[in-house]
C-alpha cells in the first residue's frame, strides 16, 4: 500500500454526514413511525409509593367509545415472565425480586404501571386510562435507604428479608498494612444525590404483531436492539427468530435506554392481543418519574495517607438507593463506584462493601459514567481534603501519587488494569492551559473583594468497553468477553454499506465508522452508508454502551473492511489480469500498483461480482461482503483506558448560593483519535451533564414518595446560558492492545466533570469554613452550608 492511502480520513475533523437529517428535522425517531391500523397505548399508573392493589375495574373505561382494550397487571403476569435481572459479578447469586411488566398485587413506587390501555388515538388513550378504576390499600412507605436496612422497617419484597437487593464485597492489596503505615486517616461520609440522564427523546415503542406470520416487529427507542430482542423472547416466551427489533434514530440514551422497559413488554402484549400495531411514546412526566433514576449513593470512606502526602489505602462502604426493583443490569453502577475508588493513584490496600437497598422510589440503573462517577468523586474529593489538611497544593499531592508511564500496564488494588498514557503530563498540560498560578493569584485578589471563584481539579482513568458487562446483559447468549461482529458489503453500484447491531445515540457512529472503513477499503467517505439497529439485517451485538464503540466496534469495522478489501482485490485482479497482491485501491478505483493505466472502478468490480458471476473464476465466491469479529482483550474488566484532567473555574455568589461556571479546561487522551471534533463533542457533552448533575439536576421526593420534580420546569437541565466555553487539549497515546490504537471515551465527560465541578465549588468556599462532601450544590444547599457554618462559628 502506498503512503498516501494511510490514514487519509482517520484523524480528520470531518462533519458528520448524519447531521444533515438531524439538522433538517428529517431524522426518523420512533414517534415518526406510523403503521397502517396503528392504535395508541397509555398507562394507568400508581398514585401511591407503596400499596396493595385491591381491585382493578376496567368496565367504565371499556365503555369509552374509543377504547379498544385494557390489559391489567393480573393478566400481564400470566402472559409474561418477570423482567430479567443479572449480576455483573458472574459468580454472584442474587435473589431476584420479581419485577412484573405491570404491577399485579403491589405497587412499589409512584407511577409504577398497573395497567395499559389501547385506544384509537393518543388523546383518547389518556382519557380511557383515567377511567380505569384501581382500588389501593396504602402500605408503609420507605424513602430512606438507611431506614430500609433497619429490622423494624417494612419489607418491599418477600424474598429480600433485609431489603437488601444486592451485596458485594471486594478487596485488594493489603488494607491492614496500608492503614498501619498511615500518619493520618481521612474519614468522611460522601453523598451523591439522585438524578438521571435525560434523553430529549423519551422512551417510545411501536410493537406490531402479525397474526398470520406469528411475528413481532418492534420499533423501539433503545441502545440495545439485539439484547432487547433476546430479552423480549425470554419474557414473552416467543421464538427469538420471529422477533425483529428496529431501533430508528435515537434522541439520546445515556445508559437509561440499556433497560428493557417494562412498558415495552406491556405494549408488545397489547399488540399481540389486538393483532394490531400499538404505539406508545412516554410523556416527560413518565420519563422523569418511572424510567430510570441514577447516581444516588452514600459512600462512607476512609483514606489512609502519610504526612508527605503519599496515599496508602481506601476502605469504603457504599449504600445505594436502588429504588423499588432491581434493573437487569443491577450491580453495574454499584460495582463501578467501588472499582473506581482508587483513581489514577498508586495505593496499597483496598476494601469495599457495596449494598443496594430497596426503597419506594423509581428503579435505579445506568447513567453515563455508570458507577465510576461516584468512585471518582470520592477519591478526588478525598485527595483535595487531605491536601488541605496537609497544607499541600492539590496538584502537587496528585503528582506525588500518580501512576507513572513506565509502570503501565498497572493493576490497581481494586482490580482495574490501566493500559497506557502519561497522567502527569496530562495534569501539567491542564495546569498550563488554565494558567494555574496566575489564576490562583487572581482568585486571591478577588477574595479580598468578596468575590469567590474556585478552581476545580479532577482526574481519572475511564474504563471504555466492559467485558463482564456483556455477560450480564445477555447471559447465556454471550460469553464474558466483549466483542463486535460487523458486516460490510459493497453494493452493485460500488457504494459500501456497513452493518452494525447497535444504535448511534449522538455518538457519531456514521462518520467515525465511515472514516475507518474508507481508509481500510480505499473508497471515498461519501460512498459509505451505515445501517444500524435493525436486528433483521445487522449482526448480533451487545449495543451502544460503556464507551465501547471506538475500542471494540471500530476495530471490528476495520477488520471487516480489510477483509472486504481483499475480496475486492481478488475480483479486480481477475478483471485486470493481475495478481491480487499487486492491486491497489484508492478513491473508489482499483489499479495495478505502478501501472495507473490498468484501472477499474469499484462499480465495475461490483458489477462483475454480483451480476456477471459467470465470468468469475470458480474459486471466487459471488457477492461482495465480509463479516468479521473483533474480540476485546480480556485481562481486565474494561477494554481500553482513556483518561482526562478537568479544570473548571466556578464562581459562587455566597450571598445567594448561585453558581456560575466561568471557564472549563479539558485535557484528555483517548488513544488514536478517529475524528477530533467528535471526541470534543463527547467530552464537552458529558461535562455539561456533570455541570447539570452537580449544580442543577435533582430528583426530589417528599416523604410520601411523591416526586416533586417531574417536569423540566423543576428538573433543571443546564441550558446554553449555564454552560461556559470549553478548551479541549488533546493527547493521543495509542491503546496498546487495540489495532489502530483507539480507546473509547464517550462516558468519561460525565465522570471527571462531577469531581471537577464539585472541587471548584469547594475551592471557592471551603476557605470560609465549610466542607463540601455531598451534592447537589444548589443555591439552597450552598446557603444552608453557609448558615450552618455561621452557627458553628458562633
Amino acid at each position, binding site marked *: 500500500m502506498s503512503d498516501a492511502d494511510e490514514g487519509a480520513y482517520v484523524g480528520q475533523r470531518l462533519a458528520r454526514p448524519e447531521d444533515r437529517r438531524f439538522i433538517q428535522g428529517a431524522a426518523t425517531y420512533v414517534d415518526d413511525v406510523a403503521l397502517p391500523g396503528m392504535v395508541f397505548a*397509555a398507562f394507568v399508573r400508581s398514585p401511591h409509593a407503596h400499596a396493595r392493589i385491591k381491585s382493578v375495574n376496567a368496565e367504565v373505561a371499556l365503555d369509552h367509545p374509543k377504547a379498544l382494550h385494557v390489559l391489567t397487571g393480573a393478566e400481564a403476569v400470566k402472559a409474561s415472565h418477570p423482567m430479567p435481572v443479572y449480576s455483573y459479578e458472574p459468580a454472584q447469586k442474587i435473589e431476584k425480586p420479581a419485577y412484573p411488566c405491570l404491577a399485579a398485587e403491589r405497587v412499589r413506587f409512584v407511577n409504577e404501571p398497573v395497567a395499559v390501555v389501547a385506544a384509537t388515538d393518543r388523546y383518547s388513550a389518556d382519557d380511557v386510562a383515567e377511567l380505569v378504576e384501581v382500588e389501593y390499600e396504602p402500605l408503609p412507605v420507605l424513602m430512606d435507604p438507611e431506614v430500609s436496612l433497619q429490622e423494624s422497617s417494612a419489607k418491599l419484597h418477600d424474598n429480600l428479608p433485609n431489603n437488601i437487593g444486592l451485596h458485594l464485597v471486594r478487596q485488594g492489596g493489603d488494607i491492614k498494612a496500608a492503614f498501619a503505615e498511615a500518619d493520618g486517616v481521612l474519614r468522611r461520609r460522601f453523598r451523591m444525590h439522585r438524578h438521571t440522564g435525560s434523553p430529549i427523546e423519551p422512551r417510545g415503542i411501536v410493537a406490531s404483531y402479525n397474526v398470520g406470520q406469528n411475528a413481532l416487529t418492534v420499533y423501539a427507542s433503545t441502545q440495545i436492539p439485539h439484547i432487547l430482542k433476546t430479552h423480549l423472547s425470554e419474557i414473552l416466551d416467543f421464538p427469538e427468530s420471529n422477533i425483529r427489533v428496529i431501533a430508528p434514530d435515537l434522541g439520546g440514551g445515556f445508559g437509561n435506554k440499556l433497560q428493557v422497559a417494562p412498558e415495552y413488554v406491556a405494549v408488545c402484549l397489547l399488540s399481540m392481543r389486538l393483532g394490531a400495531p400499538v404505539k406508545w411514546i412516554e410523556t416527560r412526566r413518565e420519563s422523569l418519574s418511572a424510567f430510570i433514576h441514577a447516581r444516588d449513593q452514600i459512600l462512607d470512606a476512609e483514606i489512609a495517607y502519610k504526612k508527605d502526602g503519599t496515599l496508602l489505602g481506601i476502605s469504603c462502604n457504599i449504600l445505594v438507593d436502588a429504588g423499588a426493583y432491581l434493573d437487569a443490569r443491577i450491580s453495574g453502577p454499584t460495582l463501578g463506584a467501588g472499582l473506581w475508588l482508587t483513581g489514577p493513584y498508586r495505593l496499597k490496600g483496598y476494601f469495599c462493601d457495596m449494598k443496594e437497598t430497596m426503597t419506594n422510589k423509581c428503579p435505579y440503573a445506568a447513567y453515563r459514567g455508570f458507577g465510576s462517577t461516584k468512585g471518582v468523586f470520592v477519591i478526588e474529593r478525598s485527595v483535595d481534603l487531605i491536601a488541605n489538611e496537609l497544607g499541600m497544593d492539590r496538584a502537587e499531592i496528585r503528582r506525588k501519587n500518580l501512576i507513572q508511564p513506565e509502570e503501565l500496564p498497572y493493576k490497581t488494588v481494586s482490580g482495574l488494569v490501566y493500559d497506557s498514557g502519561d497522567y502527569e503530563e496530562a495534569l501539567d498540560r491542564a495546569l498550563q492551559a488554565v494558567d494555574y498560578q496566575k489564576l490562583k493569584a487572581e482568585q486571591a485578589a478577588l477574595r479580598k473583594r468578596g468575590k469567590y471563584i474556585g478552581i476545580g481539579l479532577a482526574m481519572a482513568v475511564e474504563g471504555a468497553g466492559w467485558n463482564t458487562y456483556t455477560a450480564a446483559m445477555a447471559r447465556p447468549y454471550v460469553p464474558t468477553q466483549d466483542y463486535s461482529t460487523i458486516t460490510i458489503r459493497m453494493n452493485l453500484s460500488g457504494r459500501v454499506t456497513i452493518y452494525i447491531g447497535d444504535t448511534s445515540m449522538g455518538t457519531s457512529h456514521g462518520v467515525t465508522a465511515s472514516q475507518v472503513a474508507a481508509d481500510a477499503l480505499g473508497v471515498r467517505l461519501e460512498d459509505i452508508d451505515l445501517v444500524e439497529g435493525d436486528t433483521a439485517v445487522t449482526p448480533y451485538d451487545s449495543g451502544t454502551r460503556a464507551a465501547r464503540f471506538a475500542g471494540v466496534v471500530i476495530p471490528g469495522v476495520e477488520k471487516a473492511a480489510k477483509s472486504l478489501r481483499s475480496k475486492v482485490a481478488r475480483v479486480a485482479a481477475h478483471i485486470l489480469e493481475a495478481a491480487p497482491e499487486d492491486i491497489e485501491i484508492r478513491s473508489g478505483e482499483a489499479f495495478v500498483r505502478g501501472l495507473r493505466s490498468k484501472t477499474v472502478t469499484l462499480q465495475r468490480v461490483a458489477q462483475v461480482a454480483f451480476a456477471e458471476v459467470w465470468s468469475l473464476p470458480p474459486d471466487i465466491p459471488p457477492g461482495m461482503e465480509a463479516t468479521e469479529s473483533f474480540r476485546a482483550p480480556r485481562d481486565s474488566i474494561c477494554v481500553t483506558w482513556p483518561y482526562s484532567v478537568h479544570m473548571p473555574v466556578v464562581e459562587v455568589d455566597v450571598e445567594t448560593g448561585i453558581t456560575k461556571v466561568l471557564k472549563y479546561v479539558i485535557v484528555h487522551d483517548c488513544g488514536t483519535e478517529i475524528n477530533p471534533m467528535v471526541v470534543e463533542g463527547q467530552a464537552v457533552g458529558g461535562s455539561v451533564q456533570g455541570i447539570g448533575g452537580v449544580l442543577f439536576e435533582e430528583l426530589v421526593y417528599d416523604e410520601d414518595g411523591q416526586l416533586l420534580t417531574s417536569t423540566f420546569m423543576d428538573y433543571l437541565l443546564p441550558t446554553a446560558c449555564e454552560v461556559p466555553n470549553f478548551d479541549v487539549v488533546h493527547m493521543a497515546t495509542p491503546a496498546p492492545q487495540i489495532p489502530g490504537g483507539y480507546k473509547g471515551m464517550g462516558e468519561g465527560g460525565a465522570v471527571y466533570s462531577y469531581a471537577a465541578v464539585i472541587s471548584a465549588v469547594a475551592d471557592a468556599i471551603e476557605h470560609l469554613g465549610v466542607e463540601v462532601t455531598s451534592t447537589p450544590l*444548589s443555591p439552597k444547599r450552598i446557603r444552608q452550608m453557609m448558615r450552618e457554618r455561621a452557627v458553628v462559628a458562633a
Partner: protein
Amino acid sequence: MIPRSFGYHDPATLDEALTLLGEYGEDGKLMAGGQSLLPMMKFRLASPAHIVDLCRIPGVDTIEESNGEIRIGALATHRSLEDSQLLKSRCPILAKAASSIGDAQVRNLGTIGGAIAHADPAANYSPVLVALGARFVVRSAQGERVVAAADFYKDTFVTALRPSEMVTEIRVLAFGREVGWEHAKLSRRASDFALVGVAVLLRADAADVCTQADVVLGAVAPVPVRMQGVEVALVGKPLTSAAAAQAASVTKLGDKTPSDVHADAAYRAEVAPVCVRRALEAAINRMTARNK
C-alpha cells in the same frame, strides 16, 4: 401531557371574543400565547371545555404613549416589550422585566395580558407593575373598568378578573432619566422563574436625597409585596450604597413565604435582603449616571 378534549374558537374581533367568553362563563378560557395555559391543560390541571384563542384579533398588541402615559395592548408579546424603543426610553424597567422572561421561544409567544391574568406569584411583571402603580383596563361584553395593579392580584393564580372579563390594556406612567430603577430576577437558570423578584424605582432631589422609593418583591408571597419598611428607610436619605445596604436590611418577608424544591422559605428570607440591596445599588447607579 395530553390535554382533555376541548372546543376551539378563534374569533376575529374583540367583541366576538368577549361574547363567546360571556356565553361559556366558567367553561371558557381565553388563550393568548398559551405559554401558561397549555402546560396546565397538558398536565390536566386545567380542562376548559372551550378555548377562545385571541391570536387572530388585530390591534390589541400596540405600545403607545399619550400624555405621559404608556398604553400597552394586552396581546403585546414579551418580545415586543423587550424590543420596544418607546419602553426602552420611557419605561425601561418594563422592557428589562420582559427580557428575562423564560427563553426566546416563550417571549415570542407569551403576552403581557396573559402573564397578568395568569398571576403566577413568581412572574416578572407583577412586582414591576405594582411598583409603577400600573392600571389594567378590563373589559367584558357588559362594559369596561379599570383596576389598579395593587388591587388586581388576590392570591396565587387568583385575580380580580371575573370569568367573563379580559384584560385589554396596561397603563403605566412614563418616566425618564430622573428615575433610578432596577428589575432583577434571582433564578437558578437564566430561563427559570424567579426565586425572588425585585422591582425598584427611586426618585431624588437635586442633592440625590431620596424623595420617593418604590420597592416591590415578587415570588416571596402569593401576591407582589411592597417593602414599606425599606421604602421608609430610604426616603429622606442621600442615595448611597451605605443607605441601600441599611434600607435593604429592613427587608422582611411575611408568614406566607412559599417553599418549593428550589427555595424554601428560609432561603427566600435570607436572600431577599441581598436582592433588595443589589437592586437598590443598581438603581442608585443608574440615577447617579444621569448626572454624568
